[in-house]
């Protein structure tokens, strides 16, 4: 009867949850004000979203500094880990949210206004993503994943004018639900093998088991199924089938966010589960990551080359980026070396790159997302040279040309891989990068070396140029002075068990 007397509620470290609480508070405030204030000015919604995201990011930065004096720790009955890794992921995601909000505000249509719900979903998805980045329990992780995914399905379907948008939302939804089921089944089998859903608990149980012996079959199948589920979420080949369609159909502002934050969160989850929880079975799952990485790089690069739609190209290129991050994961799986830091660096850089690239897509394609074919980019250098230059910079960054952040990212993962003697994967990755470069060149060629199809002036909304500016500046600054990022990310660690 007296429930409270017989149970001990875990202590909740509210301070450590600040970024999450800010995001949640922002969401509620947004929804409340939106429903209560009759004449809610249009700029207020994105502004509030951005302020919330930046506030959460600032809180995360404060946490980052605090972690200087303290090792990572876990809170709320081990459900959440606060460590350098989770805080970094939080920061990346808040930045992505802020930029995503900027893009979204440029992307609305005039007839239907700028629905408040889009921004609320942006914030809730950030909650999910942050939770995924810091979850120390597979169930919490799964809930975070679902919060993120559901928000994204809706965001993908949110452009009600275009049927493609809703179709992409539906497609994403069904395949995403399919993947979630696999992930969850994997969690169930791992739970069966270890009697725990807590990542630390799993790690401990498995370490004990090594001494005891016994069949690992259930565990391994569970790991496999989880990999399938997470592979879907990070869109690694061969689980990438949904990516191009969904990326193409979704509103571009959403695609940019989807390509960045969702992938970051899924990789964060992947890294934590496998590196922390399944460390003792690393020899069993590492080869699978190897295969996924190489497949992703090659499938992403080669399929991208035959596309005619820039949005689809970028979608495929995001698959090959996923492959590169998996190279980092594979390196991180060797426990010594810098795989973790390299993957984290790649994620941070990739986020900024991809945001900028899609921002340019928005600038070119306009509010209606109509002109995303390669033809629309023909002769862009003649119409808007600065825009073409910015896009070229970002594309070269994606290709991994020196003095751009993309090079730093690729160099980092390759270095991490080489450090642990994974030469095969490094060479495969680099060869894949060359194939990928061909794709980026195609776009560059049509921008600079072909004649424009129209001479219509291209209106670029200010917010979009801001995003492009930030992205390009980041790309170049990190390209020239990588130490700014590397010295910080070098400190990325998981909380000790």
């Amino acid at each position: 009867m007296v429930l409270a007397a017989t149970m001990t509620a875990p202590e909740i470290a509210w301070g450590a949850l600040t970024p999450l609480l800010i995001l949640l508070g922002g969401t509620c405030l947004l929804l409340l004000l939106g429903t209560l204030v009759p004449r809610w000015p249009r700029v207020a919604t994105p502004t509030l979203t951005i302020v919330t995201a930046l506030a959460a990011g600032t809180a995360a930065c404060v946490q980052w500094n605090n972690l200087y004096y303290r090792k990572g720790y876990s809170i709320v009955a081990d459900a959440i880990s606060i460590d350098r890794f989770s805080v970094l992921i939080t920061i990346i995601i808040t930045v992505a949210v802020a930029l995503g909000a900027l893009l979204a505000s440029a992307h609305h249509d005039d007839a239907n206004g700028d629905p408040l719900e889009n921004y609320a979903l942006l914030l809730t998805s950030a909650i999910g993503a942050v939770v995924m980045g810091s979850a120390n329990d597979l169930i919490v992780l799964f809930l975070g994943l679902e919060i993120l995914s559901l928000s994204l399905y809706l965001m993908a379907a949110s452009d009600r004018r275009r049927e493609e948008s809703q179709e992409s939302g539906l497609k994403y939804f069904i395949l995403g639900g399919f993947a979630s089921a696999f992930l969850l089944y994997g969690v169930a089998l791992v739970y069966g093998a270890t009697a725990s859903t807590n990542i630390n608990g799993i790690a401990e149980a498995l370490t004990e088991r090594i001494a005891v012996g016994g069949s690992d079959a259930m565990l391994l199948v569970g790991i496999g199924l989880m990999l399938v589920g997470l592979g879907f979420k990070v869109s690694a080949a061969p689980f990438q089938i949904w990516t191009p369609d969904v990326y193409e159909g979704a509103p571009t502002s959403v695609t940019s966010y989807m390509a960045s934050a969702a992938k970051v969160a899924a990789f964060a989850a992947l890294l934590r589960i496998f590196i922390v929880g399944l460390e003792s079975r690393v020899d069993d799952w590492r080869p699978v990551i190897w295969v996924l990485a190489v497949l992703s790089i090659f499938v992403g690069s080669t399929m991208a080359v035959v596309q005619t739609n820039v949005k689809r190209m970028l979608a495929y290129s995001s698959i090959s980026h996923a492959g590169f991050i998996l190279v980092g994961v594979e390196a991180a799986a060797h426990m010594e070396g810098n795989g973790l830091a390299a993957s984290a660096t790649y994620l941070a850089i990739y986020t900024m790159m991809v945001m900028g690239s899609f921002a340019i897509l928005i600038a070119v394609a306009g509010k209606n997302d109509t002109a995303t074919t390669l033809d629309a980019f023909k002769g862009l250098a003649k119409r808007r040279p600065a825009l073409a230059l910015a896009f070229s910079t970002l594309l070269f960054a994606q290709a991994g040309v020196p003095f751009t952040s993309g090079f730093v990212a690729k160099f980092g993962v390759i270095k991490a891989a080489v450090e642990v003697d994974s030469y095969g994967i490094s060479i495969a990755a680099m060869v894949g990068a060359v194939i990928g470069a061909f794709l980026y060149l195609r776009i560059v060629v049509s921008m600079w070396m072909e004649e424009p199809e129209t001479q219509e002036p291209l209106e670029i909304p200010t917010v979009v140029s801001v995003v492009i500016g930030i992205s390009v500046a980041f790309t170049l600054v990190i390209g020239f002075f990588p130490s700014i990022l590397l010295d910080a990310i070098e400190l990325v660690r998981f909380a000790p068990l």
Partner: protein
Amino acid sequence: MELFVFVVAAAMVLGGALGVITRSNPVHAALSLVLTLFGIAVMFVSHDAQFLAAVQVIVYAGAIVVLFLFVIMLLGVDRTEDVNIEPITVQRPLALIVSAGVIGIVIAAVVTSRDLLGRKVGGLDETTLGSPDANIRQVAREIFGNNVFAFELTSVLLLVAVIGTVLMARRVKSGGAGK
């Protein structure tokens, strides 16, 4: 007795599941789904998970499938899908291979890991099982104890669902774009 329950419930579960994937009429499929859900609920009961059994019926049968049916009826999309048309030739064999593979692998894993299943790791208080509310109390204690964070997260999840329905239900004025 337990065997009897298992056999009946398993028949319900599998029969329902096969119904879902074979019936061409979505309403029939939904009804088959209900059959499966009840079978699962029975199995929950035989695992002393009465709370889950009740929630299973309330949430799945009472809300989820009702919503399905509601949507089917509201939109009038109950037209029969011709299950004999195969869109891509390799799709079905491929799907069969994949799902049979999953089943086979998991079964193999389960069978070889039988030794793991017997071990009692604790956490389930079996001494109180006799009292009427034992299961519910334990589940509650666990949810509001160690899993309180996850519980709070579900509120965010539901918030997303609410926002989503509002967004999707909003009528749109054509902005000129699109087809």
